[in-house]
């Protein structure tokens, strides 16, 4: 009965279940379903990136071309926004992109694909604000850290726009607020997209079940939410990729401020 309830409740899929309770030095490090999907995302992406390039073929096969495409996609993004000198941030941006992309996409797969795992639902790591916020704070820490390391106090020129002196008292606080809100917008964007998408999919999937239990007419009517569910699934795959791309792009844009604070 509990699982049936969970089956229709759109929020149930976001619940964190502890699989193996663990604790190190008083810090809760329990192995949860979230942990499992983080490990899956990292394991699959690392395996994909390494094994696809095993052949080192001059003319790439399918897997290798996908890995190369991702590499060039992010490399071009970093080069366009940060320039050649910004390529030192390429591994960070690429890791963020891959991690977010794999977490997003793996969360979309029906859990039955991993039938060996004793969890009824797939879990989306990025649908938790704490995870996306931690990633956003990582980006902001790198931005502030690199900015101070590279430019010293000159980094704070970032908050002084190139305008007449009279306007500065108004604009400097605005710049500071906009800078401080960056990690919030960066993390909320990803979190909200993932959360809303999965809730919507679950709601429509729930309609199919509810309508299906109403008899023949209900089964016929349930075609509608089913069609919407299929369309939403396709849309969610697009969103999963798009949000990873947006996260990587914004990371680059924020890093540009660290490299060139004086606009």
């Amino acid at each position, binding site marked *: *009965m*509990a*699982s049936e*309830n969970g089956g229709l409740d759109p*929020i149930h899929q*976001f*619940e*964190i279940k*502890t699989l193996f309770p663990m604790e*190190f030095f008083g*810090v*809760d*490090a*329990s*192995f*949860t379903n*979230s*942990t499992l999907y*983080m*490990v899956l*995302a*990292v394991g699959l*992406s*690392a395996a994909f*990136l*390494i094994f696809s*390039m095993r052949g*080192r*073929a*001059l003319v*790439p096969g399918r897997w*290798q071309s996908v*890995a*190369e495409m991702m*590499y*060039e996609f992010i490399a071009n993004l970093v080069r366009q926004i940060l320039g050649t000198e910004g390529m030192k941030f*390429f*591994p*960070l941006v*690429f*890791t963020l992109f*891959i*991690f977010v992309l794999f977490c997003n996409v793996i969360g979309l797969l029906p859990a039955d694909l991993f039938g060996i795992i004793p969890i009824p639902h797939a879990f989306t*790591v990025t*649908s*938790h*604000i*704490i*995870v996306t916020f*931690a*990633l956003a704070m*990582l980006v902001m820490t790198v931005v502030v850290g690199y900015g101070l390391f590279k430019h010293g106090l000159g980094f704070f020129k970032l908050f002084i726009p190139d305008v007449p002196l009279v306007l500065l008292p108004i604009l400097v606080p605005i710049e500071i607020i906009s800078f401080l809100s960056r990690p919030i917008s960066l993390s909320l964007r990803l*979190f909200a997209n993932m*959360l809303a998408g999965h809730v919507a999919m679950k709601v429509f999937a729930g309609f199919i079940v509810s309508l299906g239990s109403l008899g023949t007419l209900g089964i016929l009517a349930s075609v509608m939410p089913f069609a919407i569910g299929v369309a939403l699934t396709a849309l969610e795959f697009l969103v999963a990729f798009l949000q990873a791309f947006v996260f990587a792009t914004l990371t680059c844009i924020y890093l540009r401020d660290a490299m060139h604070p004086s606009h």
Partner: protein
Amino acid sequence: MAEKSNTTHTEVPADGHKAVFPPFDSSKFEAQLVWLAITFIILYVVISRMALPRIGEVLEERQDRIQRDMDEANRLKEETDKAIANYEEALATARQKANGIAEETRAKLKAEIDAEQKAVEEKISKKAESAENRIAKAKEEAFGEVNKIAQSTTATIVEKLVGAKLSDQDIEQALK
């Protein structure tokens, strides 16, 4: 499963845990952060140390190979162009040479023909001249004979008729 759900149900009103929206459940933050840090650092190390250098190497190798092949192709094309230019030049000189030879031969033949013609003409004109000379001489001789015959005839006629013998001088005078 059912039992667990039941226990949470009974406990819910007590500590108010059930009401928490899972993404905002701060009691689960710690474990998520710990594992996010562990997995993300592992992924970063694997990507920056293994995956990216390998992909970059392969891409660079391919770029080099393409560049090399392009250079080679350009070189070969240049060579071909040069060969074509050489061929065309050779063809042009050959044609010019052939024209020259033809011209020369024509001139030589013309000169030979001209010379021969001239020689033949000269020979003919010389022959004609000598023939004319001979004819003139014969004519003169013949006229000389006629005079002599006329003289002797006159002398004979006069002698027969008159019976006087005329001197040659007189006869000559008379016949003139």
